[in-house]
């Protein structure tokens, strides 16, 4: 079993490293895929493990996007003039400045959302169930609306992120840079989530999901763990947003950064499609969803949101346990579950 795991992981990493060379034309899509998987996995920490269905992780994603770009510009040039002139026309980053900027920017975009998650966590994680869901939905949309009114980060006209340095002539360099950045983030997130899955922390999160009052009665300080869990998600969501901002090159408050209608729903949908509360579920769900989206979106141009809405309804209504849940029901032995035939029959009779 151990060796099988080793082969699986090493082959996946090799595949990931070779992907931009193998599928050279799809580097942007592969970057998207990595970011989507990260978002689905971090959403799963709340929605799947902790039982707190959040629509608000988009807040950290958008925040990370704005922070990375702002730091990257603000470190070398006055931010207000940059956004005033609509971007790169007045100032040009040198190669060294660009990479220094994005490095520091990503650092900030990981730490600040985590701190914010910690700060608002105490207030918001005290809500439960659908109140939490609606509250976080409101939070994400409020952030988008407010960001769209702030002048220094471009307000309604958007924020152009620094373009990739022109001194690097290799046309492939930009795509490769962002791909490897996002792949590194994906590996980091996966290792972290896998570590959580083997730890006591996960058991505590599951206890909170199954019955928070009982968990509290057992002496677990639930609030502390809920906040820490949310901070972990915010950390990785912020990083994902920062990378995405650099890749897209243009930040709009409601359509790119705090994009509750797309990213905010995608992350929920991907995790549910794959099966929430499992390690591999969000990974598989995100991959499937991305292939579906990229394959079908162009075929049904104009109708993609209708298809998305129908897809949400169908998945949620008919398929709420997701792919992993379905497999689990079908092949329970594979998941290390032993079924007592007598007990199962007894349960059927009770129904």
């Amino acid at each position, binding site marked *: 079993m151990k060796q099988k795991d080793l082969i699986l992981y090493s082959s996946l990493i090799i595949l990931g490293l070779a992907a931009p060379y193998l599928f050279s034309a799809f580097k942007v899509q592969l970057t998207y895929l990595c970011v989507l998987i990260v978002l689905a996995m971090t959403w799963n920490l709340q929605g799947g493990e902790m039982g707190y269905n959040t629509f608000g992780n988009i807040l950290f994603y958008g925040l990370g996007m704005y922070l990375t770009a702002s730091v990257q510009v603000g470190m070398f040039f006055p931010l207000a003039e940059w956004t005033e002139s609509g971007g790169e026309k007045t100032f040009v980053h040198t190669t060294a400045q660009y990479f220094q900027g994005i490095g520091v920017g990503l650092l900030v975009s990981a730490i600040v959302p985590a701190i914010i998650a910690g700060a608002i966590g105490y207030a918001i994680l*005290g809500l439960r169930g659908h109140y939490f869901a609606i509250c976080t939905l409101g939070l994400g949309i409020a952030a988008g*609306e407010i960001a769209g009114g702030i002048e220094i980060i471009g307000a309604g006209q958007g924020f152009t992120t620094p373009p990739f340095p022109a001194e690097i002539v290799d046309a492939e360099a930009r795509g490769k840079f962002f791909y490897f950045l996002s792949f590194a983030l994906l590996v980091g997130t996966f290792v972290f989530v896998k570590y959580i899955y083997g730890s006591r922390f996960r058991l505590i999160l599951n206890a909170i999901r199954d019955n928070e009052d009982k968990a509290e009665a057992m002496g677990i300080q639930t609030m502390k763990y809920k906040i820490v869990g949310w901070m972990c998600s915010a950390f990785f969501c912020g990083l994902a947003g920062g990378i995405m901002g650099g890749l897209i090159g243009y930040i709009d408050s409601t359509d790119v950064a705090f994009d509750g*209608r797309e990213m905010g729903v995608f992350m929920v949908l991907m995790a549910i499609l794959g099966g929430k509360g499992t390690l591999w579920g969000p990974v598989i769900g995100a991959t499937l969803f991305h292939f579906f989206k990229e394959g079908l979106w162009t075929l049904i141009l104009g109708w993609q*949101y209708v298809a998305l809405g129908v897809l949400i309804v169908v998945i*949620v209504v008919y398929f709420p346990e997701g792919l992993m849940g379905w497999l689990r029901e079908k092949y329970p032995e594979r998941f290390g579950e032993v079924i007592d035939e007598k007990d199962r029959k007894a349960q059927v009779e009770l129904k």
Partner: protein
Amino acid sequence: MDFLIFKAPMLMVQASLDGILLGILFALIAYGMALQWGVMNIINIAQGDLVILGGYIAYTIYLWGIHPAWGVIISPIIMFFVGWGLYKLVINKVVDRDLFISILATFGIAIVFQQLMNFIFGADVVVAQSEYGTTMLFDNSVTLPNSKIFSAFISVLYAVALVIYMKKSRLGRAIRATAQNARAAKILGVDTEKVYAATFGINAALCGIAGALISITLTLHPYVGLPYTVRSFMIVIVAGLGNLPAVAVSGMGLGLFEEFADYILGTEFRIGAVFLLLVLILVYRRFKLSKKREYLK
């Protein structure tokens, strides 16, 4: 920030009147949401999109040359069947399940509705002209469109009619019985499936009325549904389920808040302020309840 409103007291009168008249309209939508939440235990994210759809129905008859005020009669009739169909198609599968499932499923419906309205009616901001004129008050310093007064009057009329209907009619009593205890109602011979469908239909019809009124007082756009959902959700959590006077009062309160936020913070922050208020209200209630070691249920 613009503090013009504090320098000119007449603006305050203007904002208050606008807010109260608008708030009555919000209360009507919120009443529909409270009804279906209480009876079916469903949170309908598509509520606002039903409102906008109702508005577009009124706008369509306006384009046909009929006065848009007739929309307050035609739109609810059509919307009732839309709601009924929606229930038979999707909602009946999520009634007994986790609330989050209903939130996500109706979110999907909302996206479909938005996009379909975008296809059918276009992405322009539209308004149906009622040509009711305006009333000038206080030496012409406060202007009040008559359409707003009309809309508040119609909202009150429909709300009162609905309350009487719920009290007196057979279906109304069945709905109230189901809300109290669905299982017991079933045992006593109430066809709960039909009651649910009717409840969702009535909710959609209320949305249709509100939408028709919005089409003559405010503006319509395919993507502005979600703020109406959030407003009605907010009113319901402040007022509680099935408490009509409280719904009316908190609706007006929300209308006042919005108009003042509009003047003080600027129009670009108006929707942001609404969503932020939702967060603040929820957080306030959470802290208040946690003193008693309880939480919002």
